[in-house]
């Protein structure tokens, strides 16, 4: 069973990328770095999906010479799913970056925990 890990090296790389992204989101305090971590997780999912669609020795799913034989082409569905994923990733990244800009404008720091402490030091209520 463990031998499978060496054959499925694309999926293993996707898992490692996913864990890097997850730990970046959990351990970094900087909001921009958290967004970068989210993007790394997105990329790992795309890699995983693209790897699942591949079939060795077959052509890309563009019909050649009217040959509509399913055993000649790779799976077209993961490509469509990756497309959806990329679009959502771009939208979420843009949205969270703009929220981060407004956050920085308000608190003058990108540090998530630091904001609370800064307001305590200033003697203001944490809102």
């Amino acid at each position, binding site marked *: 069973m463990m031998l499978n890990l060496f054959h499925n090296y694309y999926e293993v790389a996707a898992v490692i990328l996913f864990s890097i992204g997850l730990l970046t989101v959990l351990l970094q305090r900087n909001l921009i770095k958290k967004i970068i971590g989210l993007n790394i997780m997105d990329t790992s999912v795309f890699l995983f999906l693209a790897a699942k669609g591949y079939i060795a020795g077959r052509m890309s799913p563009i019909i050649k010479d009217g040959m509509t034989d399913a055993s000649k082409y790779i799976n077209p569905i993961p490509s469509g799913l990756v497309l959806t994923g990329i679009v959502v990733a771009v939208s979420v990244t843009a949205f969270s970056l703009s929220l981060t*800009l407004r956050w920085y404008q308000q608190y003058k720091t990108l540090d998530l925990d630091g904001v609370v402490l800064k307001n305590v030091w200033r003697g203001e209520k944490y809102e």
Partner: protein
Amino acid sequence: MSGLSEEGKKDVKKFTDWVNANSEEIPPEIVYPPKHDDHHGHGHEHKEIVIPHEETLREKMAKREHIDENFQEEWQNVMQKANDDPSSPERWYRLASSIGGALIVLVLLITVANLPRFGSPDAPAMNEVARRYLESGLQETGAVNSVAGMILDYRAFDTLGESVVLFTATVTVIFLLQQKERNHNKEDIEAVDGNYKGIRSLPAKVIVAITFPFIILYGIYIVLNGHLSPGGGFSGGAIIGAGLVLNHLVFGQEFSEKFINVNKCKKLMAGGLFVYIALKTYSILTGANGINSHIPLGKAGSIFSGGLIFPLNICVGVVVACTVFSLYSLFTDWSS
């Protein structure tokens, strides 16, 4: 303030005016509670209002400025202390999240070890749905590119959702980042003149002037050939958007706005979505299977083939190109 005399109210008004004006002058002298010589002993109790003295106010402001300036250093000290202290929650959090991350990786690796081999032809993902798309896609949608046939015919409703997600993201970013301009008058913006002027490097300008038309042309080619070759509205739109961003980056805002700006982008995106919805409504009203549709599928492999896929690709391309450009433009406007 109902307990105050007329005089007291005037004093409070003076003081609040002073605070609002934020002037350097010394504040008016105020005594609270106001002295009432003959009202003593009548059971008339005023609540004592504490108004910070000038020096304490200044102290507070200075403290605030000091905190804003030296925040990074102080914060580093606090974090250093938290890391050195073995019983701090910070350490426990880091430990717990590392262990949690390791557990998730372990579970995922066990899953990967049990998956079918990479590139194996009998993987369960290649089921009857994928086979159907490949075997009858050409006949039913008229698109040589199976992926385009899938996302713009069989799953066109899903692609409409994607375009709406892009549109919503752009609208939200406009809402969040254009507030700065809304608060100013028009004259203020012209006085500030925060227009991005472009870079000064001559080689970059020459190279971009030569390549810019070809980048746009290549993007248009990819959009229009979406049903015949790899690509389509999303990738072609991204190329066109990147070309527009390059133009803005090198030649500056003034030149770039001759082609396109955020307002035009908004209108183009809404128009693209509207055309998409109109075309797809027609397709759904005629049965969503192309049998009763009056749009010919055309000869497979020619440019005008694939029925609705050709115009839908153009709509998606317009939406994506406008999204890429307007997001870039909004973020640079904010930072300049």
